[in-house]
């Protein structure tokens, strides 16, 4: 690798004295960053630390209240000159910047289709690009019809192919499964070999060690440190992020008491992309569902919660049958859910944290003070960084939004939890506490079904069911090794 260790190397981008405020919230407080040309530079920090805000400043989407940005020593272009920015930097934003109604092909070449568009050429180029990045979507598919993962892959392909020499990736891996992440890293390495510079943001710290040479840590809107990755241990990195000493351990709940009372019973259930599945989850048990994107795991979880109607079979909670395809019935039966896409199904962006968090449990008469205090409880309990319970969730950082979705799922104190990628975009510390919540729920006699691509999420599970093309192909008890699980997921067991 061409890692130039900072000193003396030319900088691809440099920002100094950057301050950004949103009303009373200070998102960035006189921070700086300097990314050496050819480097892959990690930016890490807890949810709400200001990472995405810095990204918006570095890509010219937002003018900082103070501070300046230089590319290769030259002042950044004026905000209005979008074309000039695009030449300097390409970016995968944390929040989707695809145009939902347009085709994948057009999104890939948005505003660079050429003067007079030849659609057949565009389609061909798009197909090539998708193939090159091994993104299995049709170039003419409408982006609105893609899954979160597919859309993320399209946006990554777009940014990597834009031809810019500096690329920012803001949590590109939060919604991707292992193989897709690996392909992304391969691609990044080969671009880096060609001299492309990256700024990479992720809450999966092992990824930082895998692809980055330098790391910058922000905490509470301030710059904490910049150092070569090689010289920084993981506990030190976590300490820099959290300000507290001590490593982190994701709770694995191995000491959870077992029970044999079934709470959730899935019997012969068939639906979109899966067929004739039967299993039970006992009180105090956490069951993981793993599988590739096409395995039907998401569809299964969504069917259990009533977001999709089953084509056959039943779901019961505590022995009583739950009407299929009916969310209110599922809620009444005591099922709570973190849906797959927080923007699409998880949150009403313009409503407050309090309102979103208690949406599933509103009493007939809503008292503002009670609403607010339950909002405050959610903020405290899930470690949400916000100005207060009345803040609209659209103002929150991505990870904090995800925590609100978790709060909403658990608000009704459900007997069964259906959690789809529950920790997507959540920082290490918060992930620990969210998984701790899952563990605590199980200890309190609840049953949980965790659908995730993240091994950490699956580690709290007592059992992991692996789906392949809609059927259970393997089941692992606690203590599985990564390799064997991944092999099963890929259908190679």
């Amino acid at each position, binding site marked *: 690798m061409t890692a130039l260790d900072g000193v003396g190397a030319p900088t691809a981008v440099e920002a100094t004295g950057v301050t950004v405020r949103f009303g009373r919230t200070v998102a960035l407080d006189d921070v700086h960053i300097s990314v050496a040309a050819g480097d892959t530079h990690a930016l890490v920090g807890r949810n709400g630390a200001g990472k995405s805000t810095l990204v918006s400043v570095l890509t010219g989407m937002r003018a900082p209240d103070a501070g300046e940005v230089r590319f290769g020593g030259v002042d950044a272009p004026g905000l209005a000159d979008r074309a000039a920015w695009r030449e300097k930097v390409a970016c995968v934003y944390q929040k989707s910047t695809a145009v939902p109604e347009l085709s994948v092909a057009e999104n890939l070449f948005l505003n660079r289709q050429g003067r007079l568009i030849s659609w057949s050429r565009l389609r061909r180029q798009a197909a090539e690009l998708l193939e090159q990045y091994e993104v299995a979507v049709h170039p003419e598919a409408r982006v609105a019809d893609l899954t979160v993962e597919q859309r993320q892959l399209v946006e990554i392909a777009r940014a990597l192919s834009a031809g810019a020499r500096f690329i920012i990736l803001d949590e590109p891996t939060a919604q991707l499964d292992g193989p897709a992440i690996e392909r992304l890293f391969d691609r990044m390495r080969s671009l880096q070999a060609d001299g492309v510079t990256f700024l990479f943001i992720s809450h999966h710290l092992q990824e930082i060690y895998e692809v980055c040479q330098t790391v910058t840590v922000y905490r509470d809107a301030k710059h904490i440190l910049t150092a070569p990755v090689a010289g920084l241990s993981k506990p030190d990195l976590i300490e820099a992020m959290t300000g507290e000493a001590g490593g982190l351990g994701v709770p694995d709940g191995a000491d959870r008491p077992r029970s044999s009372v079934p709470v959730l019973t899935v019997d012969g259930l068939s639906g979109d992309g899966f067929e004739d599945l039967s299993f039970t989850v006992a009180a105090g048990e956490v069951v993981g569902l793993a599988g590739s994107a096409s395995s039907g795991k998401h569809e299964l979880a969504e069917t259990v919660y009533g977001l999709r109607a089953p084509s056959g079979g039943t779901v019961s909670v505590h022995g009583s049958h739950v009407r299929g395809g009916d*969310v*209110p019935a599922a809620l009444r039966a005591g099922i709570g859910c973190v849906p797959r896409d927080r923007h699409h*199904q998880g949150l009403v962006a313009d409503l407050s944290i309090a309102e979103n968090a208690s*949406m599933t449990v*509103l009493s*007939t008469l*809503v008292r503002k003070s009670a609403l607010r205090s339950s909002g405050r409880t959610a903020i405290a309990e899930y470690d949400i960084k916000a*100005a207060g319970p*009345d803040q609209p969730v659209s103002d929150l950082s991505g990870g904090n939004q995800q925590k609100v979705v978790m709060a909403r799922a658990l608000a009704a104190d459900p007997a069964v939890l259906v959690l789809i990628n529950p920790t997507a975009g959540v920082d290490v510390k918060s992930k620990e506490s969210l998984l701790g919540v899952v563990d605590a729920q199980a200890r309190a006699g609840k049953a949980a079904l965790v659908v995730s691509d993240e091994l950490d999420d699956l580690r709290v599970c007592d059992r992991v069911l692996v789906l392949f093309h809609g059927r259970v192909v393997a089941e692992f008890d606690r203590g599985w090794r990564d390799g064997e699980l991944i092999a099963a997921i890929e259908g190679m067991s």
Partner: protein
Amino acid sequence: MTKALTRPSAAVAGPPKFRLGRYQDLALVPAIVVLLIVGAVVSPIFLTADNLVAVLQQQSELSLLVLGQTLILIAGKMDLSLESTIGIAPALAIALVIPAASNGLGIELPAWTAIPVCLLVGALIGGLNGFLILKLGLSGFMVTLGMLTMLRGLQEALTKGQTLFDVPESFLYLGATTWLGLPAAVWICVVLFAAGIFVLGYLRQGRSLYAVGGNKEAARAAGIRVDRVVWAVLIIGGVLAAIAGVLMTGRLGTVAVSQGSGMIFKVFAAAVIGGISLQGGKGTLFGALSGVLMLGLVENILRLLSVSGFYINASYGAVIILALVVTRLATGKVQE
């Protein structure tokens, strides 16, 4: 739940509470104050009780349409046909009651049925809109635009273009009586708006409108029966338009074929000026009500000024834009 948090996240500055809701509610207050001052300067009778009460009464029917439309807009739909409902609902109800000789249908239902039938017609229209939109999956804008034309046409067909005069006592009573010095119509609006503000602010069903209008899928995933909410809101809108129809019929003493025609633009204007988003999920009834009030004051002032017919539209349009600018400057918020 356990696992107590890690340390309250700092850096979030300042005292809490950024009450966007409340804040926006008051957005029109500066513009209204300006109008009150202008009015007082323009004409000595402007600030008299009589004049202000007349403004309120004249705006009462519009305000009910705005109330209905606001609920519908918050839930993410729109209903253009309200401006026809305000005509056809009382027309049909009255035609069922009065003798054929007075242009009735010759069915001669007992007179007391007039108001209930009128409200029922409103509810049915709302229900039909709901059916076409939700069950058949037709475009809400187009359905209610088609309905707007069709209902107006039905009224023409029903009455053969004649105005209905023989208006039942119950309508006339509501249109003319005053209770405690205020016209009954004003009281009715006050009560309905108060109820609306309560429901939207404090009842689960009311809050769910915001969720449905803000993000339908998220509302569904939170267990809200989205279709049922939309349907309910369309029916309520229809009933409110029918009530407005009763009041207007009572106030004018007749049902003209064109009753309400052209009102829908004003309805949208009042709602949007009052901070209701056409995108759904946003706004309050208090805001909408101030929108209605603002339009009423503007019209009243222009009337007292006796602006010549040739300049009245130009002034009205200019004042609306000016009011937007004032609101914009006062709140500092870019409008949607």
